[in-house]
């Protein structure tokens, strides 16, 4: 099947007074229709910047330095805002991590959803738009939608704001949905309902989703594949099973070990030692080396390539080189216990 999205060797930088911040470094991946790819990784490692660069929503300080972005067979890397405006709504929709900034505080929630409906169904009658908005609000679990249609975002709790954002995103029936922490502000029962709702819509419409999340429970529920990012690079990518049951990169091991779900009562939680590197001047070797108990001498010298573990599973760590010493992952029995 043809790839819906193909990102090749993408690098994105910000020009700042202190110098060039290399937020995304040489990232490649692809995505098929109907697939959910989760991106996980340290705060500040470039997940949001990567998503925004694909949608071409970066601020003017940002620059795509190299690489290409191909959507539905069209190379949009050099597209300007004028070209994107026509395309964006048809291809992309988004749900961001912060519902308050995603919603316009001066417009009622109902009219914001209505606006999204109208953009994609120009010429729809007023009444039909209203009915569609109410249906979307019901779909995302906003009770008493007719009463709440005329309320402003500040009337809503965090969870309900995010449901409104979901309704707006779903109004356009996009090809790719970018969901940046879509369920963090929801209670776990609604969280699971929204994830299942996403899944359903996905199956029915063939929407592909790029999900950014820190919640490895959420990712386990809906991701088909997972990309692990560190300091602007994808350091491991594979199916959900491969990443959870057979992780290969020491950074992925660290993430799994830090989960409170598996912590022992009374003992401090495991944390990955040290801090992420400065993206102003990333180290020349493996950016994770100085925090990695398994680092080899070569890690400080040379960036590891993506080693193949299986047809779907790749990891950028010198531990996978055939000359590397064999190490046992610190996770018990391949499971993240």
């Amino acid at each position: 099947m043809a790839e819906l999205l193909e990102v090749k060797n993408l690098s994105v930088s910000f020009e700042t007074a202190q110098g060039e911040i290399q937020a995304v470094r040489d990232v490649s991946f692809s995505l098929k229709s109907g697939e959910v790819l989760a991106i996980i990784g340290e705060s500040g490692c470039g997940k949001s910047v990567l998503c925004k660069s694909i949608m071409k929503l970066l601020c003017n300080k940002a620059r795509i330095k190299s690489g290409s972005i191909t959507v539905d067979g069209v190379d949009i890397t050099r597209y300007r805002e004028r070209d994107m405006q026509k395309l964006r709504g048809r291809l992309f929709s988004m749900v961001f991590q912060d519902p308050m900034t995603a919603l316009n505080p001066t417009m009622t929630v109902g009219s914001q959803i209505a606006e999204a409906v109208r953009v994609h169904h120009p010429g729809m009658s007023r009444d039909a738009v209203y009915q569609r908005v109410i249906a979307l609000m019901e779909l995302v679990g906003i009770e008493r939608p007719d009463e709440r249609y005329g309320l402003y975002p500040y009337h809503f709790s965090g969870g309900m704001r995010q449901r409104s954002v979901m309704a707006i995103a779903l109004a356009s029936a996009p090809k790719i949905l970018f969901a940046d922490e879509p369920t963090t502000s929801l209670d776990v029962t609604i969280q699971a309902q929204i994830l299942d709702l996403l899944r359903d819509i996905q199956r029915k419409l063939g929407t592909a989703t790029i999900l950014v999340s820190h919640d490895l429970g959420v990712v386990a529920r809906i991701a088909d594949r997972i990309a692990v990012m560190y300091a602007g690079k994808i350091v491991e990518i594979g199916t959900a099973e491969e990443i959870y049951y057979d992780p290969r990169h020491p950074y992925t091991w660290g993430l799994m070990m830090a989960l409170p779900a598996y912590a022992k009562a009374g003992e401090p939680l495991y944390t990955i030692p040290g801090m992420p590197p400065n993206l102003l001047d990333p180290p020349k070797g493996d950016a994770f080396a100085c925090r990695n108990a398994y680092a080899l001498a070569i890690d400080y010298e040379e960036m590891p390539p993506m080693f193949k573990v299986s047809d779907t599973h790749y990891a950028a760590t010198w531990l996978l080189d055939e000359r590397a010493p064999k190490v046992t992952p610190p996770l018990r029995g391949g499971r993240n216990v």
Partner: protein
Amino acid sequence: MSETILDVQHLTHQFRLTKHTTIRAVDDVSFQLQRGEIFGLVGESGSGKSTVARCIMNLYRPAGGRIFYRGVNVCDPKQYRMHKNMLQTTRQMIFQDSTSSLNQRMTVADIIMEPMAINHIAPPGGSLRAEAERQLHDVGMDASYLNKYPPELSGGMRQRVAIARALSMEPDFIVADEPIASLDVSIQAQIINLFKHLQAEHGFTFLFIAHDLAVVKYLCDRVGVMCHGKLVEIAPAAELFAHPAHPYTKLLLSAVPIPDPRLERARVLQTFDPSDLQDTGEMREICRDHFARMPVEGVPH
């Protein structure tokens, strides 16, 4: 021995939705916090957790009930004015959504130093800037971020700046509304360890609101569960997770996601009958320190 630092009595708050509808966001909620404990408040989205927090921090004036902090009735304007300085320096709040609570035009250093500067607090570590650097370091960010502005930071970094700002005041009591949801698991673990450390070393008291029940189970000493504006259950954390009594608590615990794809995908969502959640009963003690709102007949255990 134990000293009640916060006493919330019959707290009620409502919002007017339209001319004809009001929402009872918080409905007769009572609980106490002992000095040095971490109390978790969990529950439905929209059940009133943030509203409780905002009433406690004097951001809303409650429609009914009383809130005592160190014996001061904070809802009473006269008492509030009399103790304003103490209330402002010893209590801090970390918001669910820090992006909008940070001043976009201030540098990270200024944001962290501001409360200390306003309250004329001389930091133990010398200059305010050195103190800001130390606080930033504690939340896992290095000094290179001191001169940045919030829009130049990632979401998780902004949240950590908000945490550093609140902790810089070395408050006795912290209300943290979803403070770590936007952070990656390793930084989450670091902040949780930091909170535990502040509790153990300095006797900080926390009201910790969160949706991540694995974190709540690990971090909190006691937990209250809210549903539809009411507190439906309150118990020591271990007891609550082992023996949930109220139907809503059971539902909530059954929905905790498991970080394991095969187990998680196989997990069937429980559906529930909202009428089960109707408030039929009274808060009653079902075993030591474990209270649940139960119908008069059906007392479990």
